[in-house]
């Protein structure tokens, strides 16, 4: 049946047998068909056919963030973009890379390394994560604390609208105010407005030196006093990440490092030229010691990379774990920490804080061990509390039964306008229906 609808699509890029479909399940829903386009014409054709017949599409990159939305309300076609995996242009002198959406982050970095350059988007699982999926989900890793998100480095893109037309926005230059910024609109739209088919990105030079100073503290007071001392100095760490005991132990174990024994650990990332990094290291070590640190370490080279990779990837969570992303005004993460630690929570929460951008990741491991009500009531209470401090909570991942009870997305300003944009851009609601709006 689907084959008839997709009349312009060569059969060899279509999968419709059981075994082939089972790799594309989203929140317990299985697509009727998988299409694996090999070029942008295929993409346009699939969408045109689907659009004219009202069949819904969920776009797949590496699948690393496919769980970060509400369950879909329709799912006819899985559009797997991994076959569009060419780097179209790389201009090291211009610090410009143009790529198809299915290229993995690792492949990009392998290409860039020859010129001592890198992609500042470092989402989890870069060997699987594609640039298209990263941009569509506005996914990021620890580089965000100094380099920003996709909205800061993507220069332009092309996307296919429900009529199957290829639309261009932005360009390849660093500064651009020519027309409305559809690029920014597409970034973080989770494939609900159009399907991204080409991306231009500004890349970055690899810094001379990268170094981590890690330190352990007995309590959150000491931890936060340490951080505010850094803020009050002229040191400019590229990242400051706080981990509770359990989280730090897990990332250390995964990277083969013996963890320091403290209730709270802080990882400060330093990068730049040697003198500046060394000078900052001294300041940070001094501030740590002055705030009762229980241990201080310098980590560099391979170990640095391993530790940060496992911070980025978040330890293997397992299907029944829950990850919440809490965003608050930049210096109010303390209040959330305090709330969790001092309240009598019925669930155990592991905490990782990106201090420089006011974001906490709260992880409930093995959520099935708790009664359903307990988990949901925790999510609701942290949501209410966060709203009071001017922030919001998204559910980054959770088992389907949890998502049935709580919305992945928070109440958030402008949702009505977003709905209108969705209606205008995708009147037939074929792109990832129900996943965001």
């Amino acid at each position: 049946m689907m084959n008839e609808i997709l009349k312009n699509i060569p059969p060899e890029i279509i999968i419709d047998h059981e075994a082939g479909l089972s790799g594309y399940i989203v929140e317990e829903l299985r697509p009727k068909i998988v299409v694996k386009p090999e070029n942008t014409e295929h993409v346009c054709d699939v969408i045109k056919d689907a659009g004219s017949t009202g069949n819904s599409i969920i776009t797949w990159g590496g699948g690393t963030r496919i769980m970060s939305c509400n369950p879909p309300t329709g799912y006819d076609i899985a559009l797997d973009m991994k076959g569009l995996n060419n780097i179209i242009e790389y201009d090291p002198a211009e610090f410009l890379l143009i790529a198809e959406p299915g290229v993995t982050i690792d492949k990009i970095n392998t290409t860039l390394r020859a010129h001592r350059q890198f992609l500042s988007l470092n989402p989890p699982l870069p060997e699987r994560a594609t640039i298209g999926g990263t941009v569509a989900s506005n996914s990021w890793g620890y580089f965000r604390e100094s380099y920003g998100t996709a909205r800061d480095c993507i220069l332009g893109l092309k996307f296919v609208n429900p009529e199957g037309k290829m639309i261009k926005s932005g360009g390849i230059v660093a500064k651009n105010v020519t027309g409305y910024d559809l690029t920014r609109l597409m970034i973080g739209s989770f494939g609900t407005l159009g399907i991204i088919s080409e991306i231009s990105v500004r890349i970055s030079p690899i810094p001379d030196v990268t170094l981590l100073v890690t330190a352990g503290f007995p309590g959150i007071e000491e931890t936060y006093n340490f951080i505010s001392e850094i803020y009050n100095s002229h040191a400019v760490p590229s990242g400051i990440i706080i981990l509770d005991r359990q989280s730090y132990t897990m990332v250390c174990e995964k990277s083969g490092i013996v963890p320091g024994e403290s209730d709270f650990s802080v990882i400060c990332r330093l990068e730049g030229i040697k003198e500046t990094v060394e000078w900052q290291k001294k300041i940070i070590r001094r501030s740590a010691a002055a705030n009762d640190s229980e241990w201080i370490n310098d980590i560099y080279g391979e170990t640095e990379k391993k530790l940060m990779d496992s911070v980025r990837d978040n330890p293997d969570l397992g299907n029944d774990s829950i990850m919440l992303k809490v965003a608050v005004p930049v210096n109010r993460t303390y209040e959330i920490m305090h709330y969790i630690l001092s309240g009598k929570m019925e669930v155990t929460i592991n905490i990782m804080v990106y201090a420089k951008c006011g974001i906490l990741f709260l992880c409930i491991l093995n959520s099935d061990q708790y009664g359903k009500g307990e988990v949901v009531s925790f999510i609701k209470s942290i949501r209410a509390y966060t709203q009071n401090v001017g922030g919001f909570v998204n559910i980054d991942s959770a088992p389907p039964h949890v998502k049935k009870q709580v919305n992945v997305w928070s109440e958030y300003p402008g949702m009505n306008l977003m709905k209108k944009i969705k209606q205008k851009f995708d009147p037939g609601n074929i792109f990832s229906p129900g996943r965001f709006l």
Partner: protein
Amino acid sequence: MEQWQFGSIIEGLKSIAGEKSVLSDKESLLTYESDGLTMDTAVPWAVVFPVSAEQVSEIVKYLTGNKIPYIPRGAGTGLSGGCLPVKGGIVISLTRMNRILEIDIENRFAIVEPGVLNEEVTDAVKDHGLHFSPDPSSGQASTIGGNIAENAGGPHTMKYGVTVNHVLGMEVVLPDGDIVELGSSTLETQGYDLVGLMNGSEGTFGIVTKAIVKLIPLPETYLTFCGIYNSVDGAVNTITQLFKAGITPVALELIDKVYLKGLNEAFDMDFPTDAEAVMIMELDGPEEGMDTLREKVIDICRENDMRDVQIAADSDARKKLWTTRKHATAALGRMTPFYYTQDGVVPRTRLPEMLKRIREIARKYNITIANAFHAGDGNIHPVLLYDERIKDEKTRVLAASGEILETCVEMGGTISGEHGIGSEKKKYMKLVFTVDDLEQMKDLKGVFDPEGFLNPGKIFPEEN
């Protein structure tokens, strides 16, 4: 509009905003006939000065109900005719909404009304070691509302990003009169980036009545110097080599030969007038390591045809240099009664070729073109000098400027990096975008402003 109708509209506006908040006499209205792009003019029917979002909302509903176009206006320093009533109508001036409402040092944001001037934000927080980083040269005069609408840039936005990278949230009056909040005071967003969309929407989506802007720390120190170059190529190659070496200066501003004499006279500088280009370079960061960086940078400059370097010895010298750069076009006033500032972008490595093409275009049209621009971003600002009294010189300037924009696009660049499209460049949009691309953008305009009374006649080429 008939006189009697007009009278009743003015009365209607007065009843919303107050007797003294509406200008309608011909003489006063002339002040509003243009923005910073003085060659285009359109006189509004009246100007109204609301003081609150509620008043803005009432005005918008009232004008829409009467099918009258309305145009938001900040300081009127725009350079693309963005706030001109090209289809007639009422200008809504936001200049009386000029309070800083909240400063949160701890969480590094400020909430300001749209009429607050760009530099006022930094002035209010610099004692705390913070600043609002977008620094258009018009910072002493332009408003935050105007900066957002144009997504303004400036010399220092190369490293820290343009306006959109520093706006976290806002309050907007939509064309249906709804007052909505967008974004928040966090650095994260959920879903579609409406705050990002508002930036650079040139006052065609809604009227910004409040903005939450990000404050970032001032660096411990700056190192500012001028490289004197024998060639433009040398200066541009320097930039590429600096980036390759992992050095990101805060600013890289190139000034070409045409300017130098005028700058020496106007600002008491001593640039050698036989140099081909001067590049202002600025580094920022911790004091420690700055000496090493300076050596590295100067080595790179010397390897790339720099013949001399002038280092700003102290903060006064730095300030003088930046004043010179930011007010550079004023110095051209000594050479010409009129000038037309263009704004285009090319891939940075193609700047030497672009500047060569600009010289050829100047020759072809027999005009003088001066260049002072954000070289690190490839964002050119050719200034085309002319005298309206000289027969067809303005026509030649317009033709030359069109050719410059075409060349930018040919080289893979675009027709505006920071000044916007407005009414000035809408006819060039088709150089960059297809009809489908433009239709998609129009869809977005339709979501915000289905009836089309907000700032009509901008961005999109006229249908013919």
